């Protein structure tokens, strides 16, 4: 009956309850949208970055990450690949042979990252074939190269043209070769789009004279929030000091820091919205206490303990917040879903600004429901926190003074 009492009391002042619930509803929608857009932007950026470069986790020769030299490579080892194949948390992995080289065509030359790949495995991770804007994707036996669109444009090259690569090979050898272009891919992250190229693994090994060696194995996972445990697990299974396992946060800390900073900014904005909610709830509490003081006096007079009375009042506040929260989540969900399916392609100044920060100028919200839940918890916490004022006032009630009020 206490629940029934709280629920019915909540609707006693219908208009006020609707106003309070509406403030929670709209603030929830805005808070959720802000959060899922920021998270979505970074999810995409992190996912694009790690899939094209280091992976969520990477195994490489101990010390490779310090100097990124092809001398710090390691030989193919079935033991490591066996461990990776049986780990359920790993969705895909691919070996890579990476080096920096100069790409040249005609009068133009540009420094870039050239990556030797296993075309099938690479495609499972970075979906390179889906990013083709011209030509075809690589095959294992090809002696072709794939260029990023920005690089191709800079070098004024198109499919079937030839690009000359110049770099340093294994153990100080000279690396020089020319490859016809099989395809051109467009990458979402502008910086990557201006300076990447891919060769089939055999070609890259030939170019760098490394023999059957890799620089790294990039790993993609189911849940990127569980990387630390997975890293330890893989490290323990591999054992020894020959290999190093690193997470993406360790390899590209600036990306993680940017993510955390943006999340912090978003939380400040959310804080403003929470303040709106807090004022709405607190106003309701104040008016409710004022209007019902006489009734509280009567309830205490007929034998209702203050603790029970406080519980009913807190229940009222929490119910109101739950209704607002659920409606807010329900209202936000179709909007988030729509923009997930139809992402906003930013153009003009906004788009350019995003590109400057190395974001692909696309706003595609995250569908991770935990972002909805977090906002719900925040609103409920506010309601509980503010209800302590009602509890305080109820415990100070003198029955006779309240009855006479």
């Amino acid at each position, binding site marked *: 009956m206490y629940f*029934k*009492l709280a629920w019915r009391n909540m609707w006693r002042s219908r208009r006020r309850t609707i106003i309070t619930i509406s403030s929670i509803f709209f603030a929830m929608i805005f808070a959720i949208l802000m959060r899922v857009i920021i998270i979505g932007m970074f999810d995409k950026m992190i996912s694009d970055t790690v899939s094209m470069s280091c992976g969520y986790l990477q195994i490489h020769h101990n010390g490779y990450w310090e100097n990124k030299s092809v001398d710090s490579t390691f030989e193919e080892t079935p033991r490591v690949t066996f461990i990776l194949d049986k780990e359920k948390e790993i969705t895909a992995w691919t070996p890579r042979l990476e080096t920096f080289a100069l790409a040249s065509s005609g009068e133009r030359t540009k420094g870039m990252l050239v990556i030797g790949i296993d075309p099938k495995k690479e495609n499972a991770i970075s979906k390179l074939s889906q990013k083709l804007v011209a030509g075809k994707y690589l095959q294992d036996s090809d002696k072709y190269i794939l260029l990023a669109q920005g690089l191709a444009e800079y070098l004024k090259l198109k499919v079937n043209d030839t690009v000359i690569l110049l770099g340093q090979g294994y153990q100080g050898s000279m690396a020089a070769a020319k490859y016809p272009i099989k395809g051109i891919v467009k990458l979402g992250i502008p910086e990557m789009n201006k300076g990447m190229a891919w060769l089939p693994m055999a070609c890259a090994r030939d170019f760098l004279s490394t023999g059957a060696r890799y620089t790294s194995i990039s790993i993609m996972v189911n849940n990127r929030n569980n990387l630390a445990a997975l890293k330890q697990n893989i490290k323990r299974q591999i054992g020894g000091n020959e290999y190093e396992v690193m997470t993406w946060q360790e390899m590209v800390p600036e990306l993680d820091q940017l993510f955390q900073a943006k999340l912090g900014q978003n939380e400040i904005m959310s804080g403003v919205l929470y303040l709106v909610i807090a004022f709405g709830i607190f106003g309701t509490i104040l008016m409710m206490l004022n209007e019902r003081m006489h009734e509280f006096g009567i309830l205490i007079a*007929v*034998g*209702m*303990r203050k603790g029970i009375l406080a519980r009913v009042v807190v229940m009222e506040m929490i119910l109101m917040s739950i209704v607002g929260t659920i409606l807010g989540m329900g209202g936000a969900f179709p909007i988030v879903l729509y923009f997930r399916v139809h992402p906003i392609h930013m153009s003009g100044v906004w788009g350019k600004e995003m590109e400057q920060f190395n974001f692909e100028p696309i706003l595609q919200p995250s569908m991770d429901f935990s972002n909805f839940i977090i906002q719900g918890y925040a609103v409920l916490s506010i309601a509980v926190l503010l209800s302590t004022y009602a509890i305080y006032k109820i415990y100070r009630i003198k029955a006779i003074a309240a009855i006479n009020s």
Partner: protein
Amino acid sequence: MSYVIEAHNLTKIYNPKTIPVYAVNGVDLQVEEGEFTALVGPSGSGKTTLLNLIGGLDYPTTGDVKIAGVDITKMSENKLIDFRLQNIGFVFQAYNLIPVLTASENVEFVMLMQKKPKREREQHAIELLKEVGLSDRLNNRPTELSGGQQQRVAVARALASKPRFILADEPTANLDSKSTENLLDIMAKLNKEDKMTFIFSTHDQRVIDKARRVVTLVDGKIVSDEKQTQSS
């Protein structure tokens, strides 16, 4: 003789440090079980304050109140709330039912706080509302009831906890003649048949006529205490 209520040298002073007002001034009062007592007197004579002190809603400045031998003026606030719940029924001038609950839920509410099982609560609430002539109004909310009906629900609520006595502060003040008559008949019947003790403050001559004992207060003091035979 054992008394349900014993008040000794009861005094309540408002503004004791500035301009003291003696709302109740050295009152001694004993009430036996089964009494039907009216507290009468002009406005400001201290009737309501005396009822509040007897009912444990307020603490006296001096003196004590014993309910069935237990001194309630020494009790903590929480113990007093529990004591009221188990021993005292209240009927207020303005009915003061919980507006969002139905008649039967209002009656059940007191029993809920006594932690009685749901089935017992429901059954007892129906019996009580039948007793006050509202068996056809069980599921009506207070706003759907007349003033007289609301006050009868309030009486049923006061009875629900099976108290030792019921305190009623001007119970007929907001009622028309017919509703007053009806309510008085119910209270008199409960007093006669169930030996329920009633103490009420009133200005209403019809109520005074029904009382078997009339205590008159003036300026916080008892000036007369008379037993009378009922006309009906």
